[in-house]
């Protein structure tokens, strides 16, 4: 028997999950859109963001510092990864890129497992957002409500960077045609490095923000990676608004299906993705042009 408060709660859960997926996916999609690299280590970046934040929290007991440190650490890791490894693969076949990023993801997961073991680690929500909120018609965990707000602010910041700055303009132009941007005298490789860093940071930020909702384990990025790819395909590869729309759709599909039969949550997600691909092969808000 499905009650209205239950359904509304699940819609809220879907919103929180969707917002998170939107943020992670936006990182993935701008990396792919700009650099043409499908980063299969993106789930590991999400996980590392959580762990970097966890370590910071252990020393400082400040959630804000944990979020900042988690995000920055993953951004630096992304930049280092791009400089040391990824840049050698820009002109290699997609399969090579997939394999090298997949391999990196495995290395990151095993390294974290080695350091922290498989035991789950806790990062409590900040004191301000602890407990349960009475929404009048139902009770709901306060931090889950806060996640939606926190992620919305992060997405807003990302929007400003992409749509209101010169860097963003170059990135968006790069998504359309990186050869043209290069020929205009802009050092696209430096931009690529920054884009990779920003994309990774989005995943790292989501990782630490998510840590109080689902405790940290080394494998936490695996499921997220799959969901994130589906979001990118639904929303349209390379599209920032598409990532947000796709994220929200995917979050609601997973949550609402879980209410009736959790075993079918992924089935419904992939069914929705297939439907979108049939009706709109470039995704709902897909960017055409880049191959």
């Amino acid at each position: 028997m499905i009650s209205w408060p239950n359904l509304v709660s699940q819609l809220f859960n879907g919103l929180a999950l969707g917002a998170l997926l939107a943020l992670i996916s936006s990182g993935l999609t701008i990396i792919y859109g700009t650099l043409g690299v499908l980063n299969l280590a993106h789930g590991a970046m999400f996980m590392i963001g959580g762990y970097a934040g966890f370590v910071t929290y252990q020393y400082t007991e400040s959630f804000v510092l944990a979020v900042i440190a988690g995000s920055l650490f993953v951004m630096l890791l992304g930049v280092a990864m791009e400089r040391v490894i990824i840049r050698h693969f820009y002109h290699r076949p997609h399969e090579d890129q997939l394999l090298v990023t997949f391999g990196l993801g495995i290395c990151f997961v095993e390294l974290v497992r080695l350091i922290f073991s498989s035991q789950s680690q806790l990062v409590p929500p900040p004191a301000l957002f602890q407990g349960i909120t009475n929404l009048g018609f139902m009770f709901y965990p306060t931090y889950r409500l806060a996640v939606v707000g926190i992620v919305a602010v992060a997405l807003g910041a990302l929007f400003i960077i992409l749509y209101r700055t010169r860097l963003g303009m170059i990135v968006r132009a790069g998504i359309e045609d990186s050869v043209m941007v290069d020929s205009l005298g802009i050092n696209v490789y430096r931009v690529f490095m920054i884009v990779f860093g920003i994309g990774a940071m989005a995943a790292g930020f989501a990782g630490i923000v998510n840590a109080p909702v689902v405790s940290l384990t080394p494998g936490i990025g695996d499921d997220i990676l799959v969901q994130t790819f589906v979001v990118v395909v639904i929303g349209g590869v390379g599209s920032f608004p598409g990532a947000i729309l796709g994220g929200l759709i995917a979050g609601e599909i997973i949550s609402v299906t879980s209410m009736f039969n959790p075993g079918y949550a992924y089935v419904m997600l992939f069914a929705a993705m297939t439907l979108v691909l049939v009706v709109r092969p470039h995704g709902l808000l897909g960017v055409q042009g880049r191959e």
Partner: protein
Amino acid sequence: MTDNLIRRGLSRRGLLQTTAGLIGGSMLPAMPAFAEDKPIGSYPAGVSGSTAFIGISVPRTGTYAVQGEDELKGYQLAIEHINSGHDLIKKISPKTSKGVLGKELKFGVADSAAKPNEAVQAQQRFISENKAIMITGGTSSAVAVALNKLAQREHVLFVCGISGSNDTTGKDCVRYGFRQNFFGQTAAAAIGPVMVKEFGKNKKAAYLTPDYTYGHTVTKSMQDFLATAGWTTVTNQVAPLGAPDYSSYLLNVANSGADVLINVNWGHDAVLSTQQAKQFGVLDKMKLVVPYQVPFIARETGGLMQGVYAATDYWWTIEDKFPLAKMFNEAFEKKYGYKPEWGAENAYVSFAHWARMCEQAGSFNPPDVIKAYEKGETIPSLVGDVHYRPEDHQCVRPVIIVKGKQQKDMKNKEDWYDVVEIVPGEGLMQKPDAFGCRPGDYS
């Protein structure tokens, strides 16, 4: 994915020796030992050299990874102790001096990820390539049940690791399988009276059940027992193994009007569902009980087990009552730096018992070892004297009931529980054929 097969202890020299032994053995068919023993499974090929190989499959990734690692440490310590003739092993298997029957134990480890097909594939490799004389694994009862079938088919002994399902030594029991830790039903029979005493009769219970053999049998056992005290089930939320989010189930639990939440989940699932039960305010509305405690849940949930009752195989503070437990805790902590939980205890004792049975049989010949187990004699363990029932190969052993300590009462950072009661196994167990065990043939 990750290359999840790690082989240890197979040096080039060892391999050469084993090969030489095999060739030598095959060239000397008239030797008395071989003449008397009909080859069966990996016997005698697997023990014709100076070593005997054990195949270990534990989850090192996935929702049961933490428990798998603890279990593996227990196996490794047991093998180390058996090979060196440690005092603790001698207390359990007095004839063991250096290795089992003079053969040094070697082993291989595979990551089962708690998936039956991966465990079976890995163990099949260990049997065919390494001539494993004994295999072990579990942590998921689905894995244990699958390995039971493999063991019977291949005629190689399966000494079960962690597995709480009634099916393991119930309807899916085999002649070649033995289990040291208890049935879900046994846990229910032990913790049920404590719950009725604590919470009263005619209560309403909500269940969180993982959707596989362990979950369903534990939930059924709890429901059956508590029904005798008038308890009713107001909701049973069944979630898939490794569910990423328990919110929808917990919302249903929160609205069910239950007095007690019985969380049957295990591994990371138990940790996550308990944490989220707190997030959604469920634990403010109702009491939590974990009928079959998962190792590490207290430390992983960061205090949410305070005041919570649970049934478990082992808790380290029983060392005050059992000298062998104290020896084990000290050896384990010295090697690994933390107090062992019940996965490690279970693993250690299972191997020690296997070593004892081989020594008693005077052979690795599987039917002889099985018959040594089936004598059902009383033997030592870390939790006092126990015995294996010949009919279903289930160890009859006590259940430890614990209650989470409040933080202020913890004497050290690993002092998570008070031991409420140590319930003798004998009175808890159903009859050997109650779950339909028909163990099959010796050969």
